[in-house]
């Protein structure tokens, strides 16, 4: 059932491509309307992600403590100590001895806090301040060209100081502090604009990756001549989504449950409405309807 090491049949690549196409289309169907297929794939994703993360941690821990040069397998038993301490994590599930769970947590928290102090001071604090105060304002070539480096230096100095004053919440932003904070806010808006541009770039790139798969994935892979292309299955996957969505719509809606839970797809607010801002949830269940609305109209 499970292929041995190095003997994975090549035909499994075909099944993986088929699964990939269906998973992609099912997840994208969420953009149209949340449906059982998109939910199913998302839940499967969660399960696989959890196991893979754990497996990676296990493998890494094993190669830190057990296998390798200077480890337990070579007789260096000092690595047994962190293994024994890590077992104290399981007291998380004990009511009586829960406090023993705190010991390994304290070790990790202390190390992380110590590292944070050292790392932040040097790299994020001193180095940044040092660079700001040593920006060139005089000297050969500082005021030549366009834009001159000296002008850039002045803009960075003013921008850094004013943006810092924006975060002074101890005093009210009035007078000189108010002016400085306002200028700082403009610089922060420029920062957020750059972040927005970068975000759009990154997200479009993610989407391009999936488009590339849908249009170009084939079996078998080059250099062999492919006879199956992933996009053959796209209409079939879309048809599956339509069928399931119609089936879900035809099912009778369950009555509102006694416990307060958000309904997945409220019929009174279909997505085909004109895209105004989401109206407040129905009066009967404002708190429960809002999460569903937010999810549906996200973005």
């Amino acid at each position, binding site marked *: 059932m499970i292929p041995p090491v190095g003997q994975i049949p090549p035909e499994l690549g075909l099944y993986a491509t088929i699964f990939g196409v269906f998973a992609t289309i099912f997840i994208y169907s969420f*953009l*149209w309307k949340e449906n059982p297929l998109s939910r199913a794939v998302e839940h499967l994703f969660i399960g696989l992600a959890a196991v*893979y*993360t754990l*497996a*990676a*941690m296990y*493998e*890494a*821990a094993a*190669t*830190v*403590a*057990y*296998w*390798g*040069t*200077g*480890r337990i397998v*070579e007789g260096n038993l000092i690595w047994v100590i962190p293994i024994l301490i890590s077992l104290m994590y399981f007291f998380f599930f004990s009511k009586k001895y829960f406090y023993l769970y705190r010991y390994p947590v304290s070790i990790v928290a202390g190390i*992380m806090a110590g*590292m944070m102090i*050292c*790392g*932040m001071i*040097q*790299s*994020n604090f001193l*180095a*940044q301040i040092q*660079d700001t105060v040593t920006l060139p304002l005089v000297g050969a070539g500082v005021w030549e060209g366009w834009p001159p480096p000296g002008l850039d230096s002045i803009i*960075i100095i003013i921008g850094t100081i004013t943006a810092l004053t924006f975060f002074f919440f101890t005093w009210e932003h009035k007078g000189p502090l108010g002016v400085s904070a306002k200028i700082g806010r403009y610089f922060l808006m420029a*920062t957020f604009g*750059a*972040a927005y*541009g*970068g*975000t*759009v*770039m*990154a*997200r*479009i*790139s*993610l*989407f*391009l*990756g999936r*488009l*590339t798969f849908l*249009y170009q994935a084939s079996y078998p892979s080059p250099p062999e001549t492919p006879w199956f292309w992933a996009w053959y299955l796209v209409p079939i996957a879309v048809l599956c989504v339509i069928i399931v969505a119609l089936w879900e719509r035809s099912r009778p809606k369950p009555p509102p449950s006694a416990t307060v839970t958000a309904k997945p797809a409220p019929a009174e607010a279909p*997505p*085909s*409405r*004109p*895209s*105004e*801002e989401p109206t407040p949830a129905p009066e009967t269940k404002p708190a429960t309807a809002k999460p569903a609305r937010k999810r549906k*109209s996200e*973005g």
Partner: protein
Amino acid sequence: MSLPKIARIDRRYLYILLFIFVSFPLFVPLKWPITISQHTQNAYDFTETLPAGSIVIESFDFGPSTITENRPQAKAHIYHAEKLGLKVVALAYWPGGAPIGEAILKTVYGSDFPNIPEYGTSVVYLGYVAGNEVGMQTFGDNTWNAKGTDHYGTAIGTLPLMQQCRSAANFSLWAEWTSGDPGITQVIQFVQGRHGGPSEVPIITGATAVSVPGIMPYYRAGQIFGIMNGLAGAGEYETLLVESTYGYPYMEALALLDAQSVGHLLIIAFVIVGNIGYAISKYRGGKGS
């Protein structure tokens, strides 16, 4: 007063427009010329200055979610390093980066990797190194303490390259391929900052476009020597390699940049159309959206 029609387009039609318009250049290349940014040029030039035999750390700190941006960056640089005769110690601080890194090394060094003659002397793949920033600090202090074996189970002490690469003092360059935490920020804080600063541990990075604005202060402060900015940065580095004597047979990013451009234009168009609708509604005296 209700919004004008132009401001009430159902978002699902926008999704369809995005799908269609971004797909078009994948079938009909538009071949817009690419401009090399100074950030990418600096990364390329710094790598060129390294003498043969220098040890380069290639860190695959990204997952499948950002593979489109980070994989071409990493692949281009590792190819460049291999052509320059640099010694590569590759690793990943993200679990998802480990198989992706192995696939990149197989592409550059051949499908037989690691069963190649130069494995262990010119290239080593350590795989996933746990601990996030703690693992980075450990690796910088003592590489043998961070992991006892390489990705394939070979004891680290038996690899000649790892005999030379014992701590950050031996690194000539740290090439960080990053999409979040742990990433470039942690390398600067917990490796470079602890071992003498940029002159001792020079860093170049390929980051996702969303991360680059946040790391620009490090670049201006000289803590990073070069940046590949997202997919565009990868395309620029590929272009530099193609135009050099090395050539580059593994083009990946350049083919996607036209589609990226169309996506950008479409987003700008959406912003303009949305603001036109907002302006019309304000003019009519109604509530803006």
